[in-house]
């Protein structure tokens, strides 16, 4: 097999694809050919590298040089300098926030340095469309070991011993789930991968499927062997076209290699799988709604118990990340896995780090790491020197965690205790210019929209919560609204049918717990302390600070700013739409938001 001297690992995750990585690939190919380097330097399109904020990006192997913010224009110079003459190009390297010196190597960049990769073990290392590259990185060894030398009950025992818990959010012990389905006498049985990721700001499941689809297939095949299932479904939403494409291709490859189908690896074990494309309703991530959707019914949850079934047959439903962990546990052993993490939360967790944070992207960290380490060491802190206010975990089902709890070790129990939850792993960082009432309103608006409407507490409760939050944001709050929010939130939590309704008040209740004063300011003084709620703020110019540079006047879309050059300007409140452009462009902080 032909080897190359240099490998350009070009990120082809959804973020980098949107940012034009395929155009960059085209220019790279042209330039390599121009210098006759096409036989020396190979381009590998990988899954999501994780450092999405810096994309489009590449990692040059074997030196591990990390290049970011690539443009088609910078490629000719890069090819000539680095790939021909061996001089890495500093201009395209990573510079840490508020520093000047570049960090050339990937493994020295703080964002990558503190991560521990299990579920994302192959990220940036392989082409997701190559089953051979997956195999070369120990792929399908765990399946071979399981079907070749382990009894199904031994596989379940190993997963139980590892302490693996569901990565979709609730954290149910995976081994216990498998054991109950293994003992169920009914056949046929099914395994399902829940890839219906719908939280705003979350993209970890998508990235794992895009980067390493075979890790899911292998995990599901092992799970199927353990419980005695013969068919598997990957429930993927249609909004993830790249993930659907890569998964489809991977399933076809696995079938071609005999790693899916009849008599897998000569063991007599039969297992097949296919993709089920969901239409993208948030409620379909709830297991009973998900199986209803696969069965062709409206995706409405139902009461549990009885235990969830698919066509009245036993089914194991696990999240993408849970399945991706399975092969590693079988390959390296439960003991190895259970040494990572905390007492009750083993292994690692993938988070999609987003919001007001310098290094937005996908991170995999050992359980028990503190929020501070994630936000500051890996995330690089808050941009523009602003203050950290809170971090929102668990998406619309989770809650906000304030600055005073930054030293909290991240695991299932600790996040629950803080009024939030692990969720599937969304992590939105908020700075001091974020209004907590507005954030709660945003999430309730989302869940209200996504509520399936089957049960009244969720359907009507979310609507009522949204109404109250909206009027608070508009300065039209009524006496007793804050108490009403609390009472109503608790009732929706208690009375809703499924997880969606039971958790939708969390953003409200947790922000009430930690930021009650902000609610009271909105209610009593019609003030938004963070300067976000438009109805409660007004823009004006500080005459003593304004230099009369005209910049804000030029940028104002409403022509609401008047004033001669070099004399202080003025904002016409009747014309102003409070878009905030003037405050963003002003170089002297002369625009006041009150």
């Amino acid at each position, binding site marked *: 097999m032909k*080897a*190359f001297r240099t490998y350009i690992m070009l990120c082809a995750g959804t973020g980098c694809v949107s940012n034009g990585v395929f155009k960059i690939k085209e220019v790279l190919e042209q330039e390599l050919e121009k210098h006759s380097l096409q036989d020396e330097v190979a381009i590998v399109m990988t899954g999501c590298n994780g450092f999405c904020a810096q994309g489009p990006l590449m990692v040059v192997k074997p030196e591990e040089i990390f290049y970011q913010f690539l443009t088609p224009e910078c490629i000719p110079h890069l090819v000539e300098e680095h790939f*021909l003459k061996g001089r890495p190009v500093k201009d395209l390297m990573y510079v840490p926030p508020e520093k000047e010196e570049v960090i050339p190597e990937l493994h020295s960049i703080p964002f990558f340095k503190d991560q521990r990769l299990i579920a994302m073990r192959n990220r940036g290392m392989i082409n997701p469309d190559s089953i051979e590259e997956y195999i*070369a990185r120990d792929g399908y060894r765990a399946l*071979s070991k399981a079907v070749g030398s382990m009894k199904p009950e031994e596989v379940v025992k190993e997963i139980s011993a590892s302490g693996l818990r569901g990565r979709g959010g609730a954290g149910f012990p995976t081994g216990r789930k498998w054991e109950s389905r293994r003992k169920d006498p009914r056949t046929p049985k099914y395994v399902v991968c829940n890839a219906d990721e719908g939280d705003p700001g979350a993209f970890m499941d998508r990235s794992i499927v895009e980067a390493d689809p075979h890790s899911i297939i292998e995990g599901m095949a092992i799970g199927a062997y353990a419980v005695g299932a013969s068919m598997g479904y990957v429930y993927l939403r249609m909004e993830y076209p790249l993930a659907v494409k890569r998964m489809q291709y991977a399933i076809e490859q696995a079938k071609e*290699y005999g790693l899916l189908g009849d008599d897998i690896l000569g063991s007599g074990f039969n297992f097949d799988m296919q993709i089920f494309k969901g239409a993208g309703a948030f409620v379909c991530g709830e297991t009973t709604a998900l199986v209803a959707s696969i069965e062709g019914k409206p995706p409405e949850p139902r009461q549990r118990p009885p235990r969830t079934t698919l066509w009245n047959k036993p089914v194991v439903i696990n999240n993408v990340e849970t399945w991706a962990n399975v092969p590693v546990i079988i390959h390296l052993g439960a003991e190895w896995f259970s040494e990572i993490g905390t007492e009750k939360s083993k292994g690692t967790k993938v988070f999609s780090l987003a919001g007001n944070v310098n290094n937005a992207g996908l991170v995999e960290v050992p359980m028990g790491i503190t929020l501070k380490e994630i936000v500051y060491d890996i995330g690089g802190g808050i941009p523009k020197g602003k203050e950290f206010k809170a971090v929102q975990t668990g998406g619309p089902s989770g809650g906000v965690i304030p600055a005073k709890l930054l030293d909290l070790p991240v695991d299932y129990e600790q996040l629950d205790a803080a009024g939030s939850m692990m969720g599937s792993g969304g992590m939105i960082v908020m700075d001091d210019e974020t209004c907590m009432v507005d954030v709660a309103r945003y999430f309730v608006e989302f869940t209200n929209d996504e509520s399936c409407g089957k049960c009244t507490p969720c359907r009507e409760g979310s609507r009522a919560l949204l109404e109250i939050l909206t009027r608070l944001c508009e300065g039209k709050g009524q006496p007793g609204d804050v108490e009403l929010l609390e009472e109503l939130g608790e009732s929706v939590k208690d009375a809703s049918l499924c997880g969606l309704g039971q958790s939708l008040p969390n953003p409200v209740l947790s922000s009430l717990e930690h930021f009650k004063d902000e609610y009271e300011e909105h209610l009593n003084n019609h003030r938004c302390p963070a300067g976000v709620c438009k109805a409660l703020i007004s823009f004006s110019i500080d005459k003593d600070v304004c230099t009369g540079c005209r910049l804000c006047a030029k940028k104002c879309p409403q022509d609401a700013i008047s004033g001669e050059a070099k004399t202080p300007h003025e904002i016409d409140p009747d014309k102003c739409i409070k878009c905030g452009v003037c405050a963003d462009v002003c170089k002297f902080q002369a625009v006041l938001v009150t």
Partner: protein
Amino acid sequence: MAKIQPGDLDKIAEKIKRTMLLREGEYRAKVVVHMGTCGIAAGARKVMSALMALTDQEQTKDVLLTTSSCAGLCSREPMATVEIKGQTPVKYVDLDEEKAKKVFFDHVLGGKVVEEYALATGSERVG
């Protein structure tokens, strides 16, 4: 293709190991061809091509080929530095395809320094 059996996984992995190892950054020997403008003018590309062909011919799995900029001794180009892990790097000068071949077999694969082409051992101190 025929269905694979358990032992086939190793064979598949072995087959593409050459393309994977360098990505993992694992190597036993590293050959750096100096590719400054002077080096290229003197024939460094030919030296690199010859080395690439040799690694293919021998199906090496642990030899890393890379380039770096001008080594500073432009009159003695093409130059290459051979670094066997755990040993002092050796700089070779005035290379051509034939000499590169000898260096490859004797030093890179054989572990014996080709003294007649070597300039000196060691790399300059950096920083």
